[in-house]
Structures are given as C-alpha cells and as structure tokens.
C-alpha cells in the first residue's frame, strides 16, 4: 500500500510537469501564429490552429485527472455531515463509488472511442486522431486509479 502510494505520488509529479509543458507549448504555438502573420520572413504554419486545439484537449483531460488526485474538483458542501460515523463512512463510500463509476465510464467507453479514432487523420497536420483521443481513456485510467487510492484510504480510516 505504501509503495503504491509512493508510485502514485511520482506519477502525480510527472503529470503536473507534463501538463505545464503542454500549456507552455500551447502558448508558444498561438504566439507564433500571431507573430508569423505580421513578420514577413517567418513561414506561416497552417497547423498551429489545429494542434493548439489538440493540446488544449490534453491540458483539460490531464488537469481533470490531476484534480482528482489533488481533490480540487468543485464539491458543494450544502448538507452537513451526520453525527453517526458509520453513516458518514457509508455516505463517503457511496459517493466514491459514483465517482469511480464515472471515471470507469471514461476509461471503458473512452477506450472504445479512441480505438475508432485510430483510423482518422486530422484535417491539417494529417496526424492520427488517436494522438488526441487517447487522452480520454488516459483520463479515465488516472481518475480510476486515484479514486481507488482515495477509497482505500477512506476504508483504512474506517469510523475513526
């Protein structure tokens, strides 16, 4: 369990760095698109618009995965917790099960979705759309793993 936690910690760190790099690339790409329009000797690249959209898809899905690990997805605490600790445990487990169902839907259906994209080629850059679509099941997998970790921790905590 501890080892697993450690591995997930490293994974999280990697994801955070990778995601920041993607946003940086996005910024460079759109900046170049503007600058190349006004500086005559810079070649215009037609695929900047397309690739920047694809990068955004990745930034969002990875960010959503990271958000699960960091617990930053918006939750409204409109109902107060109960005094019964068993009730609260059941409640938390129920909510976690729902969340897990959600991420597993993205993992399984997202995998099917991405598999179809394998044969699709992007309009401008002519890359396989799998490169974009694979971000969906990756989010699903990350979310599932991170929710399982949260679930394990919650069970370990029990009614304490």
């Amino acid at each position, binding site marked *: 369990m501890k080892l697993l936690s450690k591995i997930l910690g490293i994974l999280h760190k990697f994801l955070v760095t990778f995601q920041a790099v993607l946003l*940086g690339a996005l910024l460079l790409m759109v900046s170049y698109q503007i600058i190349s329009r006004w500086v005559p000797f810079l070649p215009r690249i037609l695929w900047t618009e397309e690739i920047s959209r694809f990068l955004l898809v990745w930034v969002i899905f990875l960010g959503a995965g990271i958000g699960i690990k960091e617990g930053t997805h918006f939750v*409204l605490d409109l109902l107060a917790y109960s005094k019964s600790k068993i009730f609260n445990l059941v409640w938390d487990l129920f909510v976690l099960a*729902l*969340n897990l169902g*959600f991420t597993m839907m993205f993992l399984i259906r997202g995998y099917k979705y991405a598999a179809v994209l394998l044969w699709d080629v992007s309009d401008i850059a002519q890359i396989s759309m799998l490169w974009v679509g694979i971000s969906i099941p990756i989010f699903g997998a990350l979310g599932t793993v991170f929710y399982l970790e949260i679930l394990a921790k919650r069970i370990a905590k029990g009614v304490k």
Partner: protein
Amino acid sequence: MEPVFIALVMFGLFLALVFLRVPVAVSLGLACVPVILFTDHVSLFAIIDRSYTSYNSFLLLSVPFFLLAANLMNETGITEKLIKLATATVGHFPGGLGHINVFVSMLFAGVSGSSTADAAGIGKILIPAMLKQGYERNFTIAITATSAVMGVIIPPSILMLIWGGTMSISVGSLFLAGIIPGILIGLSQMATVYVYAKKYKYPIYERAGFKQFVKAFLEAAPGLISPLVILVGITFGIFTPTEASAIAVLYSLLVGFINKTLTWKKFLHILSDTARLVGVSLFCVGTASAFSWLLAYHQVPQALVAMINGWNLGPTGIVFVIAIVFLIVGLFIDAIPAIIIMGSILYPIAQAAGIHPIHFSLIGVVSLAFGLVTPPYGMCLLIASRIGEQSVHKVLKDVGIILLPMLGILILLILVPDIVLFLPRLIAPQFM
C-alpha cells in the same frame, strides 16, 4: 418521453448528486446516465463525445490564456499595484477595504477576461486583509465573489468572446457595450459596502494625498496599459479576440521580466498552477455540454421556446424572460455551455421581437455573470469561500443582499437599452 419529464429527471438527479457531495463536473455527467439508458437511440458514447468535442475548440483557448495572464498579474505584483491604486482612490470611504475590493475588481476586469481569476487573485490578498481589520467573514467572502463578476462584464471578457463567436455578433461592440453596465454594477456594490460600513462601523484609510495618488497611478500604469494593448490590437486587426488572450499573457510576461518580479522558475510554477486550474474548470464545460446536448436531443429547449412564445409578451417582456432563463440556467451550469445551447435557442426569439442583438447579448452575459455567484454552481463564490475558509451556504445571505441592487441594475438595463447601446453607437457605429 416528454421534454418536461426529461428536464425534471435530469435537473433533479443533478441536484441530488450535488447535494450528496459528488463533484459538480461528475454530477453533470452522471445525471445524464439514466436518461441515456432509457433512450433507445443514445448511448454513453454521447457523454464521451460531447466532452471531448467541446474541448476541441479554438474559442475555448482564450480561457487558459486569460487565466494565465491574470495569474501572472497576481504573481508579478501587477494586482498589488492595482490594489494600491484602489486604496489611494477609494480607501478613505467608510468601509475602505470593501470599496477597494470592488474598485480593484473594476480595474482588474478591464485587464482580464475572467472572473474566476479575479476572485482568486484579489481574494488571496484582500480576504485575509479584510478579516484582519475586523470585517465580518461572510461579508468579506460575499463582496469578493460578487465584485469579481465584473470581470466578464467589463471588457475584455471570455463570455462575450464565446457569445460573439457562436452567434456571429461583433465582439468589439459587445466589449464596448459592457463598459457602462459594468461600472454601474460596481457603483451599486460600493453603495452596498457603504451601507454595511455604516451599520457595522467598518474602518477606513486616511485620504491619500494627490502626490500619493499620482505615485500609485504611475506604478499601476503598466497594468492599466494592458487593456489598451488588447483593445487597440483588436480594433486595428492585428489579432483576433481569441489571440488577444495570448497577447495579454505575453504582455504580462514582458512586464514581469522587465520589473524583475518574474523569474523563469516562478513562471513555470504559475504555468503549472494555471494548467491545473484550467483542467478542473474546463472539465465541467465538457460534462455540461453533454448535459445540455441531451436536453437538446429531447427537445427541451424547443418546449421552452414554445412556452415563451405562447405568452405573447412584448419586446420588454421577452428580454425579461431571456434574463430570467439565463439567471436560472446559470444556477446550475457553466456560462459557456449555457451560451452555446440557450443563446442560439433564444436569439431567434429576440430577433423576432425586434430586440437589438447587442442588447440581447449583453442582458444574456450579465444574467449569466450572476450565475458566477449563485449556488449550487457558482465558480466565483466557490473560489472565494475556499480562500475565506467558510462553507458556501453560510455566505449566501450576504451574497443575496449584495445581489439585490445589482438585480436593480439588470432591470434598468432591460428597460433602457440605450444604456447598453450608447458606447457602441458612439465609438463603433459601423458595427451596429
């Protein structure tokens, strides 16, 4: 299945899930599942597809960039300079920090296109400061959240960009149209602060001398130039409104590196923070798009339109209905998918009633901006509450009090379209 029944099931489930403490983004997605399972012709494929496709949009790119620009301003001291300028300008009014909070949001709104970044950036500095000076916690959070809504009303604005893009309405005119309503809302909030300050005897700052004011103004100038760069760039066709958001980032970077308040290490840090925020906040757009798509599949919007047309209202009545629809929709879903679905449904109704497109758009944007602070899904409220370490529901009473005069402004804007149309007619008549 009947549209009304579908709508009740989906909204009901969504609310139930949110109350259970399922994350909002997840709730929107899960609320679709039962209806999908009972609809022959639709499968879970739709949820995946709508989320993925909604992210794959050039218009959405303005969101990370405006957030990044705003975060850079927050981290490189531009925001602090704006707060100093606000202090020198309105700090001596009763309830000084409250006025500063509102006024700096106005300044910040002129520089940034996002309300959430405003709530986060200004909230981080002013919420602790106000608490320290003895302001009541709920009021502090409420005024921070509500003043942040000016971010999308005063130009530049992410919402106007997406509105103009999806409905072929001039973004430049929309930007101009937002200035006066934004200022009016700011003034109404300052009036509210004044009343609070008198009632609870909140502290004031000494009046700044002219010299101090000039100094504060000059220091804040680099930040204040940024909206000029954006507006001039868009007006002269150097870049598109979406690209303007990237320019805002480059400009903030430039200021940061010249002032030496920004290092590469810090920049990478900000980049990462922004990327994570973008992930969490835009992820909601995806599931909300799936949610609204499913409503559209079951022809809920048409049912709504038929209902509205059945009432035989005049133009003013229609604008009121439009405002109410956006106010209600804004309670539950993010403004961007709300625009994409409801905007294009309501636009023909507005056109048929002879309502000016800019008037219609601005009423829509302002009404949706209210949604940023109304529960259950109000991003600014959530962010400010998180910074102020308070449960959302405890803040609601004060939010309601501040919203009342703002609602008055909204009604005024509905009744007197000229307030909205004055500036665009004056400055950009060719687009009207």
